[in-house]
């Protein structure tokens, strides 16, 4: 199985909410002090999905990431986890894209990789929560797609995918090559091994510029957007919390129940 996994470097979504700030003038997030960026968590689940298949059937995993200022220690994580190659679409022209221009550039990059059976994406990236790049790549490359995967089995050249639904899950069979987006139910991403980390240190990513993948700069990044961001803001919280006290936890609990009754919540 030859697999491609799309990954992205993002602001750490687990940083404390209190540290989250926006610069209203530029409509951009101010990266929190002292918090390192991370690989988008759902993309890590996507790597894990690919590694599970590699464990079972063998094959090659190529990770691809589009962005600027990509810290090598961060974007090399798929290599440390067990992926074989890393390609970076790295150029100012790729920056500030929306789902459209990002999916387009990634699709063209993947086309250049050429030999693939499955392309994996996360279900949604933790920065813009767009949830679209996977479907977009599938559409641009003319591939069947299954979103929200929680388990994947390969049999007879097809993938059997358990897909998370609002009611539970459904089992879908899809012909390959296909694009699959991965949900957290696939299971915790593995930790890089020492050996993996050493191997990743030695491996240099391949860098592709727009010309390398045959795209016009007018179609990618900010220039290729179909959407416009008018405003990014932090919703105001109105709640003021009343801390209910007591001599001991049990008494506080009783006081809370009485308080809720008094406030007619119960």
């Amino acid at each position, binding site marked *: 199985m030859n697999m491609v996994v799309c990954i992205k470097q993002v602001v750490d979504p687990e940083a404390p909410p209190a540290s989250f700030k926006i610069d209203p003038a530029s409509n951009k997030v101010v990266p929190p002090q002292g918090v390192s960026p991370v690989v988008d968590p759902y993309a890590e689940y996507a790597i894990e999905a690919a590694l599970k298949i590699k464990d079972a059937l063998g094959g090659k995993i190529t990770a691809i990431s589009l962005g600027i200022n990509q810290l090598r220690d961060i974007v090399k994580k798929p290599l440390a986890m067990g992926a074989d190659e890393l390609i970076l679409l790295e150029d100012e022209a790729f920056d500030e894209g929306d789902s459209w221009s990002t999916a387009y550039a990634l699709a063209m990059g993947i086309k250049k990789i050429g030999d693939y059976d499955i392309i994996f994406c996360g279900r949604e990236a933790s920065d813009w929560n767009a949830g679209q790049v996977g479907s977009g790549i599938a559409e641009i490359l003319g591939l069947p797609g299954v979103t929200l995967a929680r388990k994947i089995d390969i049999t007879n050249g097809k993938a059997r995918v358990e897909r998370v639904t609002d009611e539970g899950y459904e089992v879908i069979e899809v012909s390959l090559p296909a694009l699959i987006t991965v949900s957290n139910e696939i299971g915790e991403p593995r930790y890089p091994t020492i050996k993996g980390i050493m191997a990743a240190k030695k491996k240099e990513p391949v860098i592709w510029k727009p010309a390398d993948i045959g795209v016009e700069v007018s179609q990618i990044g900010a220039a290729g957007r179909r959407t416009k961001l008018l405003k990014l803001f932090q919703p105001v919280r109105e*709640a003021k919390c009343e801390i209910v006290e007591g001599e001991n936890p049990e008494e506080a609990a009783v006081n809370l129940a009485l308080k809720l009754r008094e406030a007619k919540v119960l």
Partner: protein
Amino acid sequence: MAEYKGVMTFCEVAEGKLASIATELLGYGRKLADELGQELSAVLVGSGIGSLAQEAIAFGADKAYVVDDTLLKDYQTDSYVSAMEKVVKEVMPQILILGQTSIGRDLAPRLAFRLNTAASLGCLELAIDPESKLLLQTKPAYGGNAQAVFICQSYPQIATVRPKAIAPLERDESRKGEVITVDAGLDPSAIRTKVLEKVPEKIEGVRLEDAEVVIAGGRGIGSAEGFKQLEELARMLKGAVGATRPPCDNEWVPAGAQIGLTGKIVTPDLYIAVALSGSSQHMSGCSSSKTIVAINKDAEANIFREARFGIVGDWKKVLPAFADKIKGLLAE
């Protein structure tokens, strides 16, 4: 772009009826269509669903397009995208809204790319910009830490709306509208997936999405046994148990109990958050609850910035005494 006109809603069908998200969308679509002074159309896609067209009209649509085909019995990306592509190209709406459900999350982006336009997923709010008349799409970003307002620069403007963003209109059987059938003209060989099985999750008692009281537990609950205590309290209050993601990932509770950005959206009267930190991704699914109560041993936990009442303490000590007192109060 001038020839695009009207608002269209994709109406999901569940168990032979209009899904609740469909009635909500019709209400939202009606509002937007009225603001634009344009028509609201509903699209029903499925097999044996023709009779629901009148329902869609009763809930606010001026026109109902029905795409009825045995190949459309189950949701599948290829067949549904094709069917919707056909309807959209025929009707040419300015705006198309779908639900942020497991179907809408899959259909909306793929359809948008097919139609060479863009979509916004999981919108909290939609409005018409008074000047440009374009659709202002407000959606969570950065896991709910922020909200972003987008406009789409091509037609149709596609958005999915989260469940419970709006209440449906009253059903009005006297409303009149036109029903139009559309032939999907599907090529079975172009459907590259097959649904082998559907496995619904068993739920006992009140559905989480419908519950008026939700007891939600987080990582700090520590085990499946711990959640039994939350279930007991939920039963007492005729509510349901929800969770953050870690308890689901650890299989202390079923995956369907997850509340948040990538889980269920709930809007109960009372939300009791036990041993969860109040991450933005979790709060994104419950912050519209009327009253939030927090029990957490860490006074600095973010949940205390979201809650109306709180106790700083160990839930293992607080919860039994709380449940006991409530039992007494309910018996009075």
